[in-house]
């Protein structure tokens, strides 16, 4: 347990991603089964200690600590788990059991015994072990480590491709002994039921102007690029699951989709919200994302559906080796067999040559706010990763606006001594109102210049944030603009980045809020 507590502390406090991965690799290489598998489950959010809930921990601590003092402490610390770890009277009365034994203990104790069991463990633990213990028991790590980072460490440690690991991940269970055996070359790849498993996605490359002359339009098919999130639906005899592009299962948040699909197979598509397959804005979709469980009212107002564009398995037959045309034919036939209320097909856009498609792309952007078009090689098999020459995305030209720098904040990690996060705004009458924030799009050299400018032109400081003279203009590129109640300007930008720094341009010539209406109009259409 001590080793795991050390690991968690390092992960929580180290800003560098590389160092986090190094620490994870060391841990997985040096700690034996089954402890390392338990650690992996905790880090990937797969560990559920059913009976330990925050209320039970609170009850445990209140048996030991005066409630008023506890309440005052909780007010000050702000985090229940950390308050408990810090306030528990320090005894360090002995060693904690191994991670694996600890989880067994917590899972097998009855609800009535648990407060005593947890109290005993807290009394034996050292300070940072108490912190790790509470995190482990509640499953809420909040240390800035994603499941993907843990899996990346496994991939780097073993030399096995991350995608191969993700492909089997959802068929595996803690403590993952068969996974580690495979990663260490002691056994073959674990066999898992495809219906329970996520299949890594095929991704596209941006197309460049010079590519077009080499590509024959007759070899390619085109579709709209949909503005939702990429999902994979796995429909098997055991049930239906939906995964995000990184392999996180999101079924629980979308019962309206997974509960209403017919047939078996594995489909690739875009998750969208709207009635009758009329996709609404990404902002609307976002209200349903990042929720563990769906809420009834939201499901009524913002019903979810999936616009399907590819098929990986037809029933339980793996068809990924077929060309796109063959897979699409299977998909069409599958749709004809299985009537759907929450799935529809992404339409194929007929076009003659590339100029023709370019016109379509512009029209789609202007009239419907489409993000661009996808171009797919008709003969391409379904290959996980980002293979070259198969799928292209041809995004609409970015929108740009000249905005004025308002606030700057210091970054993280290597950038922690630089003001690298920028809030910018546009004119509304005689004041400037914020429309967005960006922290990339500039070179290291430009970052140094910006940092210097910000330090020389600061008008106020609020903790880590500096307010600056409203004099520096950024040309900000963004994918789309939407109405937003969260910003004072009433406008929010999608994917904003600093396109150019306009050292030359007077702030008076920056955009006005009225200018944003045209962008908002396009995406609302």
């Amino acid at each position: 347990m001590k080793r795991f507590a050390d690991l968690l502390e390092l992960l929580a406090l180290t800003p560098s991603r590389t160092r986090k991965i190094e620490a994870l690799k060391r841990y997985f290489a040096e700690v034996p089964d089954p402890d390392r598998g338990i650690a992996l489950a905790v880090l990937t959010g797969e560990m559920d200690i059913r009976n330990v809930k925050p209320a039970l921990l609170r009850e445990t601590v209140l048996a030991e600590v005066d409630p008023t003092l506890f309440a005052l402490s909780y007010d000050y610390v702000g985090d229940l788990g950390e308050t408990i770890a810090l306030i528990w009277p320090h005894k360090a009365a002995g060693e904690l059991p191994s991670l694996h034994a600890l989880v067994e203990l917590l899972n097998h104790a009855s609800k009535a015994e648990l407060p005593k069991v947890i109290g005993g463990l807290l009394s034996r633990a050292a300070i940072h072990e108490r912190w790790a213990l509470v995190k482990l028991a509640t499953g809420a790590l909040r240390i800035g480590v994603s499941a993907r980072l843990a899996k990346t460490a496994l991939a780097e440690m073993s030399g096995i491709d991350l995608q191969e690991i993700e492909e089997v991940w959802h068929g595996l269970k803690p403590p993952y002994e068969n996974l580690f055996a495979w990663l260490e070359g002691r056994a073959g790849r674990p066999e898992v039921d495809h219906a329970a498993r996520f299949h890594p996605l095929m991704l596209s490359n941006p197309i460049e102007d010079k590519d077009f002359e080499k590509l024959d339009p007759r070899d390619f098919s085109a579709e709209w690029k949909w503005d939702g999130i990429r999902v994979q639906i796995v429909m098997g005899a055991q049930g239906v699951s939906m995964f995000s592009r990184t392999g996180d299962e999101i079924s629980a948040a979308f019962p309206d989709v997974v509960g209403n699909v017919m047939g078996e197979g594995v489909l690739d598509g875009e998750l969208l919200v709207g009635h009758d397959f009329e996709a609404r804005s990404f902002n609307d979709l976002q209200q349903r994302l990042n929720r563990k469980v769906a809420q009834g009212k939201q499901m009524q107002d913002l019903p979810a559906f999936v616009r399907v564009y590819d098929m990986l398995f037809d029933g339980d037959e793996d068809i990924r080796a077929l060309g796109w045309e063959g897979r699409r034919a299977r998909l069409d036939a599958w749709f004809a067999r299985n009537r759907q209320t929450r799935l529809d097909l992404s339409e194929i856009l007929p076009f003659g040559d590339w100029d023709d498609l370019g016109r379509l792309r512009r029209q789609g952007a202007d009239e419907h706010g489409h993000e661009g078009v996808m171009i797919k090689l008709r003969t391409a098999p379904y290959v996980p990763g980002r293979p070259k020459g198969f799928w292209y995305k041809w995004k609409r030209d970015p929108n740009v606006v000249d905005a004025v720098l308002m606030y700057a904040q210091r970054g993280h990690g290597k950038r922690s001594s630089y003001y690298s996060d920028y809030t910018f705004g546009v004119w509304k009458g005689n004041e400037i109102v914020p429309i967005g924030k960006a922290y990339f799009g500039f070179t290291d050299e430009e970052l140094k210049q910006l940092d210097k400018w910000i330090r020389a032109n600061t008008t106020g400081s609020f903790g880590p944030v500096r307010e600056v003279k409203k004099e520096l203009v950024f040309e900000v590129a963004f994918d789309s603009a939407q109405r937003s109640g969260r910003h004072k300007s009433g406008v929010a930008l999608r994917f904003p980045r600093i396109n150019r720094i306009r050292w030359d341009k007077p702030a008076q010539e920056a955009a006005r809020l009225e200018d944003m209406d045209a962008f908002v109009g396009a995406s609302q259409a």
Partner: protein
Amino acid sequence: MGFIIDRNLYVPEIDAWIDPSEPRARAIITHGHADHARSGHGAVLATPDTIEIMKVRYGEDCAGRFEPLDFHEPLKINGATVTFFPAGHILGSAQVLIEAEGQRVVVTGDYKRLRDRTAQPYEPVSCDLLITEATFGLPVFQHPDPRDEIARLLKSVAAQPERSHLIGCYALGKAQRVIALLRDAGWNKPIYLHGAMIRLCALYQALGVELGELLPATGMGKAEMMGQIVIAPPSAIRDLWSRRFPDPVVCQASGWMSVKQRARQALVELPLVISDHCDWDELNVSVLESGAETVWVTHGREDALVYWCKSQGLKAEPLALPGLDDDGGEGGE
């Protein structure tokens, strides 16, 4: 019953204020930190070490007159007697005992009970009224042994020889204590100092505190600073100044560092829980040992300690004193 001291820490019998936030004709200063010792008083009564610290910080003429008073030497002024006892907080830090009209009143100033060779060790003083600080006056504060914290630091230095370790700590007291702890743990290499640290470290050395070889951190090449330890004010360790060091590990030595979310927010990679104040248990013990029937609590999280004192059957109330740095910001002075 009236006390011989009022709630602004004014003692009428000797017409003196303890740690006043504004210039006064006569001030008794518990220790040299800026929220306790200010310039511009008429006469300053303090320990010789505190007077030296004030002179270094504010200049030789920062008060009209200095009256040094050694620990344990009772000084009679009018109908009252003033005696200083070590507070263990920083070099020269004192608790003030005032006796008059048959009452004993102790003003602790800032204090700690853990061993620290850079400060005269704390002694409990019995009294009727205890006026105590409560910077860490919540039971979540249980300070670990500082030697264990230094051991963690040295382990990190050994494991990452290509990086510098930058320790953010307050220039007066904390810096010298951290250096002394490093020396006692066997760190014999030079320790590098930010410019703001140099004068006070030199003063400590002049006053007999062994700190070993100290060098200025500025002007060193990046390669030379690999594997080295640098002491700097908290404001410098994440800012421009830190860019001169190779891939620095940002450390901070403060009692606040026990709260990991706080360390995370402050972008501290290696928090060192080293405090120059009592933790919760030490505050509790100090209150009980003093034998005081009445406790006034200042400087920090008063509510919890007042509540606890009442639960022990004592009379207790919070004092709201102006100008005291209750949070200590990043430094925890």
